[in-house]
């Protein structure tokens, strides 16, 4: 095993393969799930304790958060596929085994940065995770 830097990380679209902006950063796979409190009036502290840990059960759904991408905005390359259907997106990491994280996703937000004289133009967009990601080491 070896620690790696992010340089060389790639994100590809399975269907809209012509959209390949120069990406400055790619967010990782992430999300969260809820817990449901099950404590009730009859949940009693043990022994002489004054309180008791709130019992909980895990929620049924782990909700993925969008994969955030920042890229150079090059007008001739167009904008992300904001109107297209879900497609398989693949994150490929720059380790020796080219580990991948593939997921069904779609672009849900877009923000083309302001045009200013002193900086290269950039854009930000997010690809929501709409299914179970598959990690391959």
């Amino acid at each position, binding site marked *: 095993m070896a620690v790696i830097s*992010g*340089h*060389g*990380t*790639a994100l590809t679209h399975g269907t809209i393969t012509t959209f390949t902006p*120069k*990406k*400055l*950063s*790619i967010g990782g796979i992430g999300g969260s799930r809820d817990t449901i409190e099950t404590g009730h009036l009859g949940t009693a502290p043990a022994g002489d304790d004054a309180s008791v840990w709130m019992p909980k059960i895990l929620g049924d759904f782990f909700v993925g958060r969008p994969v955030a991408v920042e*890229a*150079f905005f090059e007008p001739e390359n167009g904008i992300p596929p904001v109107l297209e259907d879900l497609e398989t997106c693949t994150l490929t990491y720059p380790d020796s085994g080219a580990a991948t994280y593939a997921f069904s996703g779609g672009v849900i937000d877009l923000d083309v940065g302001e045009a200013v*004289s*002193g900086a*290269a133009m950039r854009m930000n967009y997010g690809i929501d995770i709409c299914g179970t990601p598959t990690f391959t080491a």
Partner: protein
Amino acid sequence: MIYRLLYKLLYDAADIRNRVATNIYASNVPAGVKGECIVMRRVSGSPNSYLESESDLATRMVQIDFYSKSATDAESGWELIRNAISGRGPENVQVLNSSGTESTIRLGAINLIRPGDEIDEPHDGSDQWSYRFSGDFEVFHSQNVPTHA
């Protein structure tokens, strides 16, 4: 590449050409040069890299000095530089390579960052050709992407 680009833009300006002719230099003034001249020095820069490589847009900070025989002449000369390049772009610029061939550089923008505001007095007691008026420009221009060959 930045020097060829700026040399082209400065030399093409008739007012500058009439003052300094071909006395437009990169980094330092060659020995024996007399008269007014312009010196360009690349101070810093960024290749605007992304996750996979350098992009094809470079950002360079360049200091440009105008040397003359008096403070007012150095200042007026520097104003010609400002007039020729500040706020310029986007445009394609044809430059002459060392091989004699021409290539096209895409100039994104030239922004005046630090207006000329310094005047260096002569250091050796002479009052000739040693007055300098200096300013910094930020230049956005196209560059070749490394091939790692």
